[in-house]
């Protein structure tokens, strides 16, 4: 997996590169829009992390150019403007995802992973992790043969986590996909739901599946 990071702020570009490299991505970095277009023309990237505010040609213009060239490469937009409408504007211009600054690194990595693996998403109707199964048609969850009662929200949260097993899911990403919130509510809603879910699926069972990574997010995996 090869990713292009377009960010003029050198320090930000540097830690984004490190974080993505740590997750096994090959990372190229550009500091302006024209270089990014040139790089995207010559190298087949699997995804682009694109800052909107760039010197010279800005991110949205780079994105439009890419889409005019009929490129379908997944693009994650970054922005410090944080306008509510900017997300819509960016998605309309052809972006696949949008993340306002300051973002959480885990969030960014999770999103890039989701973008680059979109086609490989687990599409089966019964999701499994150890002896936990979740039927996405009947919305039934079972662990060790015992039925687990889930509310609608808990079901969506569990489905989201089980669709990306072993991968870190950031708090904002969960709020966006499970709650459909486009804002940071500043509450511990996700933590409280995770705690309840943990009581239902983990309390009486081994191994523990639901893990919290302090300051980063949550993940569902068999081995701790």
């Amino acid at each position, binding site marked *: 997996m090869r990713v292009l990071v377009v960010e003029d702020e050198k320090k930000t570009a540097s830690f984004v590169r490190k974080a993505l490299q740590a997750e096994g991505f090959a990372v190229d970095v550009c500091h302006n829009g024209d270089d990014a277009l040139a790089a995207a023309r010559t190298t087949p990237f699997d995804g682009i992390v694109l800052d909107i505010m760039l010197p010279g040609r800005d991110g949205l213009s780079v994105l439009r150019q890419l889409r005019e060239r009929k490129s379908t490469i997944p693009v994650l937009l970054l922005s*410090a403007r*944080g306008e509510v409408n900017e997300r819509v504007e960016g998605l309309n211009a052809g972006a696949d995802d949008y993340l306002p600054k300051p*973002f*959480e690194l885990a969030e960014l990595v999770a999103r890039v992973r989701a973008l680059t693996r979109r086609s490989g998403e687990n599409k089966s109707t019964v999701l499994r992790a150890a002896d936990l199964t979740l039927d996405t048609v009947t919305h039934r969850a079972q662990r060790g043969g015992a039925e687990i009662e889930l509310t609608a929200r808990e079901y969506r949260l569990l489905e989201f986590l089980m669709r990306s097993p072993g991968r870190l899911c950031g708090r904002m990403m969960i709020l966006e996909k499970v709650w459909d*919130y486009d804002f940071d509510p500043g509450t511990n*809603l996700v933590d*409280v739901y995770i705690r309840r879910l943990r009581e239902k699926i983990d309390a009486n069972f081994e191994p523990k599946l639901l893990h919290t990574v302090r300051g980063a997010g949550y993940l569902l995996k068999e081995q701790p």
Partner: protein
Amino acid sequence: MTIRTRLSLWYAAVMFVALMVMGVLLYYQIIIEPREHARRHPERHHTEQAIEQDMFEDVTGIVMWCAVPAVLLSIGGGWWLMKKSLAPVASLTQAAEKISAYNLSERLPRTGNGDELDRLTEVFNGMLARLDDSFNRTREFTLHASHELKTPLTVLCGETETALRDESLSPAEHERVASLLDELRRLARIVDGLTLLAKADAGQVALKLEPVRLDELVRDNFADAQILAEPHGIQVELAACEEITVRGDRHRLRQLLLNLADNAVKYNQPQGRVTMSLRRNGDTAELTIANSGPGIPPEVLPRVFDRFYRGDSAHSPTVDGCGLGLSIVQWIVSAHNGTITITSEPSKLTTVTVRFPLLEVRQQMKKKNP
């Protein structure tokens, strides 16, 4: 022309015309008529006394005929002129009453006739322009400041998060870095809130307005509120939830509901209660969220919507937040043409009431009684 000049000219003109008419009539009556009379009836002789008597009556008549209309014209015309000149005062007063920090870009209507009031309006508009300018500068400053803060914040958060992943950290160091990151994220939320409010003040946030089933959002929010309240042993109930459609921005309305529910839980007593309800009241949708919290002291109540206002910190020692929640709530409500009020009886009930205009009242009534 100034009002003073107009009035002076009017009175001068009335006086001039009246005196001219009087002069002509007197000349005719005193000089011409006796001569004519003498020529036509030379045989008659009048005593001096009779002539004087005649002339006195004639002159009195002429003076009356000129003076009365002149007085009436002066009064009527003066009254009309003053009324016309002072008419802008009413609209000026009305417009000045409406001016607040949010409509400084509006200008008072000018008559354009150059009188004292027009000049006053001009000066007033100039003052508004200067105020508008300085308010805009403050807003732009907040906006630029929050933008400028975002880049270093991104770097700080990113570097701290990278440090947190370093597995060579001892548990104590790890805890310290994690706590640092929590505070950085709080700072990031404050900056986010500031940006949103600065943009809202400048009218730069466009809402995506569409018909929204408010009752569905309330039910959804009720479920989240129950979950949020559970760890504190707080009971949440939904007393009423009528089917109501409003015109609004789904995301912002959900933000509003979550914020209010979160507050109702946060500012509550352990084992307390939260009661939510959504009802139709006339042509408004009325949402109330009441909690059994310690209440808000009356002197704090008018200021709860102020940005970063925290009231008596002794009342909320454990509550953290960005200090902008209710300001954002207030903005969302007013952006939907709604109103929000908070009433509180200390150590009893605190109730937040939000009212939104219903969408197409008539259509809903038809649906209800076909």
